[in-house]
């Protein structure tokens, strides 16, 4: 545990609370924001009319749901209100909850990659927290008794390799790293062979942050993908796109373009402990059918959680 500043340690000790408690705590701000808006709307109206819907739409937009998703949810709710002859604005809350639940539920095999021999490719734009997330994932799987190997394929950003190496020391897992500015494809290639030789359960690959509109960088990602497919066909491939929850509607664009070069299997939503509302997760699920699998709710090592839609939505609506 060298070089970990005091603050971090204190923080993670303080936060030794149950999963639910932490999620609620992490999402307090989120809750305040979504519910602050929604509740205000619900209680401010005695009838369900056009003005009511417009206010509700605003509240959802403020939560980064995006205009299209907000409109879609509203129109679904309108239909249900009509069908069920709902008159009381407060009852719309239950409808909204159900609607969100429907959207956000995960498939049964969402986490099955953890039990298989898997390569986990972590991708995303700059500054969303890829390297930190990998550190947390490594700690988590190591604690579960799995053999983990990290591949430092972000050879571009200054000191990214050092940052991941530091995490590998903390988690006490193996790391395959090369020189700065070397070919990331070569690192992944080496890492695949190391993972095979060391009989690793999970190989987690860091990649350089890239803006999704930079063609050559996206091509490079395609290449990394191909190398894994070719050299390690027996492994399950899990491609996780890391999104910063403070990102707005651009996250949709990011997900779309990354989807084109890599078969994304899940989303990691980071920085949910700020005031960002994370509504973008709902937009991404609605428009691109990509599920959130993990959420980051703090800076502590164990602040990366499985995404539980039920608890997520319950936490959103908890008083």
């Amino acid at each position: 545990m060298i070089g970990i500043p005091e603050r971090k340690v204190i923080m993670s000790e303080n936060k030794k609370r149950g999963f639910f408690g932490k999620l609620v705590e992490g999402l307090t701000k989120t809750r305040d924001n979504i519910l602050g808006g929604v509740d205000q709307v619900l209680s401010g109206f005695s009838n369900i009319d056009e003005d009511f819907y417009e206010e509700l739409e605003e509240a959802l937009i403020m939560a980064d749901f995006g205009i299209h998703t907000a409109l879609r949810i509203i129109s679904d709710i309108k239909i249900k209100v009509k069908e069920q002859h709902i008159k009381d604005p407060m009852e719309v809350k239950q409808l909204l909850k159900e609607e969100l639940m429907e959207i956000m539920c995960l498939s049964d095999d969402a986490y099955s990659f953890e039990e298989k021999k898997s390569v986990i490719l972590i991708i995303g734009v700059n500054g969303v927290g890829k390297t930190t997330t990998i550190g947390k994932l490594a700690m988590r799987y190591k604690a579960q008794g799995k053999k983990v190997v990290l591949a430092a394929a972000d050879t571009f950003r200054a000191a990214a390799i050092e940052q991941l190496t530091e995490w590998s020391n903390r988690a006490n897992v193996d790391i395959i790293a090369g020189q700065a500015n070397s070919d990331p494809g070569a690192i992944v290639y080496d890492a695949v062979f190391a993972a095979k030789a060391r009989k690793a359960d999970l190989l987690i690959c860091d990649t350089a942050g890239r803006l999704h509109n930079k063609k050559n960088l996206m091509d490079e990602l395609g290449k990394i993908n191909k190398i894994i497919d070719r050299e390690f066909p027996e492994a399950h491939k899990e491609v996780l796109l890391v999104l910063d929850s403070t990102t707005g509607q651009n996250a949709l664009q990011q997900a779309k373009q990354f989807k084109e070069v890599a078969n994304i299997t899940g989303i990691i939503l980071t920085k949910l402990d700020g005031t960002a509302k994370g509504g973008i997760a709902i937009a991404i699920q609605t428009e691109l059918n990509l599920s959130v699998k993990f959420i980051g709710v703090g800076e502590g090592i164990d602040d990366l959680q499985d995404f539980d839609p039920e608890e997520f939505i319950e936490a959103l609506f908890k008083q």
Partner: protein
Amino acid sequence: MAFESLSDKFQNIFNNLKKKGKLSEADVKAAMREVKMALLEADVNFKVVKDFVNTVKERAIGDEVMESLTPGQHVIKIVNEEMVTLMGSGESELTFTTGGGPTIYMMVGLQGAGKTTTSAKLAGLLKKKGKKPLLVACDIYRPAAIKQLQVVGEQLGIPVFSMGNQNKPIDIAKAALEHGNKNNHDLILLDTAGRLHIDEAMMDELIELKDVMKPKETLLVVDAMTGQDAVHVAELFNEKIGVDGVILTKLDGDTRGGAALSVKAVTQKPIKFAGMGEKLSDLEVFYPERMASRILGMGDVLTLIEKAQSNIDEKKASEMERKFRKAEFNFEDFLEQMQQLKSMGSLSDLMAMIPGMSAQMKNVQIDDKEMAKMEAMILSMTVEERNDPNVINISRKNRIAAGSGNKIQDVNRFIKQFEQSKKMMKQMSGMMGKKGRRGGKGMFGNLPF
């Protein structure tokens, strides 16, 4: 390019408005509903959008517009004016301490906004202007943050002061000031750790740092892709620490840049710089008027001219302009153009600055490999072929293809493209000629077209 899709939307809305000879209140309202949607999709803060749309609506429904002969144009003018107001007017320059000790800047922001990279970019920019900067690594929390600053510092030839991660940021900053004074640095840049605006303990650390160090400017680094939350972040940082200016990062993404519009509107703090790329030289002074006209799809001719002026030989340019007007443009010129353009930056960015161009060029993918291919093909031509593309027949095409390592289809496509761009440039030079006469001579003389 940032704002691209937003500007597409605006152009559509405007085109619809322009078609109408008379505007009814309903027309304006419908257009404003679309403006509202476009801005919301661009992540402009909801409250800001509401105010903006209401202001424009109020002004647009007034008698002035209704009675105007070109009401559509009038509405566009109002939108443009309000947009500039929203983004602030005039560039706002950094201030420096005069006399007695170095100027201190403190960089603050959320995690992953790009503080470390921006600190280095800013130091590099000011070094070019004759300052002697010192970068100070006050981020003791993120693993390898110090190393990152050292690496970028070294690339720019700027010294980095660090004391590892076992000292408090405040002590590091104090020691850095002493070190700076001793070594005649006139500028000290404090790179602080990223933090959440609601993390009290971490915010207190910044408050203390600011109290003791008394930075001349506290600069908030904001990711241009931030959503509705951008204003909360900016508000809270401003409230707690006091912010003098904002630096927007990652504007080279395809973000619609709503954060840029909102942050200024809510905090009233000027946006001073914008990070436009991954290279350490990619930091630009932020000009609100230019950005507004980029957003509205009106191009950014001023920046283009500046870029051209600093990169292009004037004599050659005016010779080129003459050729364009007379459509004497040949492959030899094209080659030279390509080389000059390359020195100005990426083609797609340049295109976005030309009025009306972003819409026209939307479906044309330009990437550097394509450029290299074209270059190879031209280099495989004889001087005669380059000067008179008309002589290129099938057998010549085959030779060019073989010589440049391409297929004959590529050569065909390239020649066709060339003819097209010749036509387009001729049109444009006509356009510029007109404007040039109106706006004073030589305004467009330095453009490479």
